[in-house]
């Protein structure tokens, strides 16, 4: 199983990504798509990343997931650059024989991606404000849940 890992400025299509996961012999596909919310007058979002490190960080998360669950396919796609509300930022998909493996692996990957991959978001609002998004403590807590499983 070689994970599909991509970091790209271009939009992606979760439907196409999900289709890639339906490999022979699987019984379950779980997917997650993250979308830019337009709350509080958000106009656009700029996603910066550490190009030389991002891919290896995602590969490491994928390898951790593959070590924990018997996966038959795994995809991580992350957009970078400028996005607007409604745009898709991230896709995570996992395929396995059984449902809990696929769902848990997908959930693990998106939780760890939030804390262990070098991306940063800057939000620009209709009133002109532009701020770097603060990391949330709940993300660290959600990552930590997996350490005792």
């Amino acid at each position, binding site marked *: 199983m070689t994970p599909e890992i991509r970091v790209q400025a271009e939009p992606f299509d979760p439907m196409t990504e999900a289709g890639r996961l339906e490999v022979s012999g699987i019984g379950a596909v779980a997917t997650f798509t993250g979308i830019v919310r337009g709350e509080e007058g958000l106009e656009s979002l700029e996603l910066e*990343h550490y190009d030389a490190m991002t891919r290896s960080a995602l590969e490491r998360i994928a390898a951790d997931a593959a070590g924990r669950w018997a996966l038959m396919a795994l995809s991580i796609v992350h957009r970078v650059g400028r996005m607007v509300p409604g745009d898709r930022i991230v896709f995570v998909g996992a395929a396995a024989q059984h449902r809990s493996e696929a769902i848990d692996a997908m959930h693990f990957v998106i939780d760890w991606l939030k*804390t262990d991959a*070098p*991306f*940063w978001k800057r939000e620009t609002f209709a009133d002109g404000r532009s701020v770097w998004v603060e*990391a949330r403590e709940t993300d660290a807590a959600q990552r930590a849940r997996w350490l005792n499983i």
Partner: protein
Amino acid sequence: MAVEILYFAWVREAIGRDSETVEPPDDVNTVETLLDWLAGRGSGYMEAFADRSRLRVAIDQQFSGLDASIAGAGEIALFPPVTGG
């Protein structure tokens, strides 16, 4: 020994550049002492490094602690906690 320093997000903006090559003296041998040494370069650095609880580091593309040794490092990145996904 020369080492490449990378800055991201508001660390980059405060310092006003995204990378530079520096040659710290021998007694600058951890991330903490590197931050002290870099802070002498100007107010942008001091501002960026003022609250170290908000700083994260990667040494040669691996997340590390601020107390980590920088001996032999080729690339050190300084940035805020990540907010992707």
